[in-house]
């Protein structure tokens, strides 16, 4: 029970108390964290975190730092967009990091050049078959199909065998990593064609992430797909009774998450000009953390894509901020973990407070 201007216990509708959406809290946290780094920077480093303090580069802001803040989270951010939709249905996806590793290996092996410095690239995976210097569309389509296949396996397992999403995606997390290592017996796959490399060059990962984020924000907000996703996550039984094909819809959600994992793998391998079996380890947990920090409820049905994007930005600001302050590497992980837990505790507290208004 709380006292509101409109009466004890908020029995009457209190419009002012409900006007702030969940994302506003995350956005405020983002601003506060930036300000904290700005303040600590002035005190400890005698430098600004976001403002430009150099004479040899123009502009009000430190452009390079603004760029890296987004760039370093855009690839995991792409995964987080899919993970967000999965969590909204009340599920979880632990396989995305391994799917990224596997897809990167497979896609990259169709994107290799035939010659390096005028010498034949004999260690290209498909050198013997002559599948080198292929048009960029081939590795991209193969990578996307790979991601879709993984998502489909997750979705079918969860929807039709009814095993918990945690177990189903844990299975693929282990198996997909196995495929990634088996594909070339652990050898890295490097030297992509210029066309493939262009997908990850410069700020391309940010552009791709931004486009996908806007696309899925609109989809979740304005389409039947989005409404059904929220409905299933809020109350699965009610969703089923109201005629939603819950099983079919879950397959679709996991498939989309797989597809986004595939896109992330292509961008990641193109950005790094290499694919390695160990790529993407722990990405699934970073993606889940971004969603959770962004206010996505792990019990499903609550949160938005915008929240996840803000969560990703908080992640990026923290990484850059730590490096900016030259915080000892050993402390960085400790602090990062505390921030993740702290964000969820704050969110729970905020939720309970808003719930007590009714």
């Amino acid at each position: 029970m709380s006292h509101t201007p409109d009466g004890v216990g908020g029995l009457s509708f209190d419009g002012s108390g409900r006007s702030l959406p969940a994302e506003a809290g995350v956005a405020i946290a983002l601003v506060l964290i930036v300000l904290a780094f700005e303040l600590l920077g002035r005190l400890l480093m005698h430098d600004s975190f976001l403002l430009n303090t150099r004479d040899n580069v123009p502009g009000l802001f430190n452009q390079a730092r603004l760029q890296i803040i987004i760039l370093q989270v855009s690839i995991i951010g792409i995964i987080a967009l899919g993970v967000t939709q999965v969590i909204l249905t009340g599920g979880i996806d632990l396989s995305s990091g391994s799917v990224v590793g596997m897809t990167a290996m497979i896609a990259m092996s169709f994107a290799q050049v035939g010659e390096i410095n005028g010498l034949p690239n004999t260690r290209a995976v498909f050198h013997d078959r002559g599948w080198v210097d292929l048009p960029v569309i081939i590795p991209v389509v193969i990578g996307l199909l790979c991601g879709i296949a993984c998502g489909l396996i997750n979705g079918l397992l969860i929807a039709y065998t009814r095993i918990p999403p945690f177990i189903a995606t844990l299975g693929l997390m282990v198996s997909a990593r196995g495929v990634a290592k088996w594909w070339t017996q652990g050898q890295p796959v490097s030297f992509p064609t210029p066309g493939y490399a262009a997908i990850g060059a410069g700020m391309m990962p940010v552009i791709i992430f931004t486009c996908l984020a806007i696309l899925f924000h609109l989809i979740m907000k304005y389409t039947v797909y989005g409404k059904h996703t929220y409905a299933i996550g809020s109350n699965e039984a009610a969703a089923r009774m109201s005629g939603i094909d819950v099983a079919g819809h879950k397959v679709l959600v996991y498939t989309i998450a797989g597809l986004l994992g595939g896109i992330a793998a292509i961008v990641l391998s193109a950005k790094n000009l290499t694919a390695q079996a160990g790529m993407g380890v722990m990405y699934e947990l970073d993606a889940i953390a971004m969603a959770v920090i962004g206010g996505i409820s792990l019990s499903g049905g609550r949160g938005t894509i915008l929240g996840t994007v803000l969560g990703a930005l908080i992640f990026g600001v923290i990484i850059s901020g730590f490096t900016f302050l030259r915080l000892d590497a050993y402390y960085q992980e400790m602090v990062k973990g505390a921030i993740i837990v702290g964000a969820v505790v704050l969110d729970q507290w905020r939720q309970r407070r808003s719930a007590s208004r009714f």
Partner: protein
Amino acid sequence: MKNLLLSTAMVVGMAGGASAETVGVSMALFDDNFLTVLRNGIQEIAKGMEGVDVQIEDAQNDVARQLDQINNFIASGVDAIIVNPVDTSATQAMTDAASAAGVPLVFVNRQPVNVDTLPDNQAFVGSDEAESGTLETIQVCELLNAAGKTEANVYVLMGELSNQAAVQRTKDIHDVMDSGKCKVTLNIIDEQTANWQRDEAQNLMTNWLSAGTPFDAVISNNDEMAIGAIQAMKASGLKMEDVIVAGVDATRDALQAMAAGDLDVTVFQDAAGQGSGALDAALKLAKGEAVEQKVMVPFQLVTPENMVDFAESN
């Protein structure tokens, strides 16, 4: 004890004569480039030999899993075991398990903590990790000195902090600075981990660049991170001839970067040599022959002048 060993060796030797020799191999992890070369080195040599079977397992960087694998090898009656330890301080239990069962054991690449007290039928084949970071750092000093500098700002990229090689190579840098072997005064602006990964190093370097502090060299614990740093510097328009970049491993990607004039220093660790050396020792021990208990395969400095010699090595 010696009698027991001798009789075990004879039994093993006889069994080996009757059928194929089986060698169980437990690798710390499969998805590490250097260890993959080592693992393939073992496999290829075994393939070329008559009657030698190797069974390779992936310990996935888990100490407990590795010990289980060794016990499983013993239970299935292998003739010898090769272990690439996940954690070099956890090797005593492995030594005990193998020696209790009388199965020869060879540690490869990472030096076990009990290397000086190994029983007769156990050995270590590897390199002295302290060499790699030392060779790397001294060469960076030479290059900076040749460029006419007396003082230099450097960034240090560290591997996984829980990994001994990362800790040792970073320590080597500090040791060289303190020992006076460096002709220039190195000033470390910052040292951070990028977990051996190219992508993380790329992001970390970009973060460093955004601070705008002038620097002369980047010293990395491995080549993958050095390449990540190079990609970040190139993306921000830095001229690579103005910066010294050094790594360790002499991977194929690294030699390519060296050929392009981006990477200045790397250090070659003979992975295939270590793999074949370990297999050789394991087979000899299985036959009851004596082997040298500590075989050191030296690191070699790789620079643009001698890089062609290493083109087909890794």
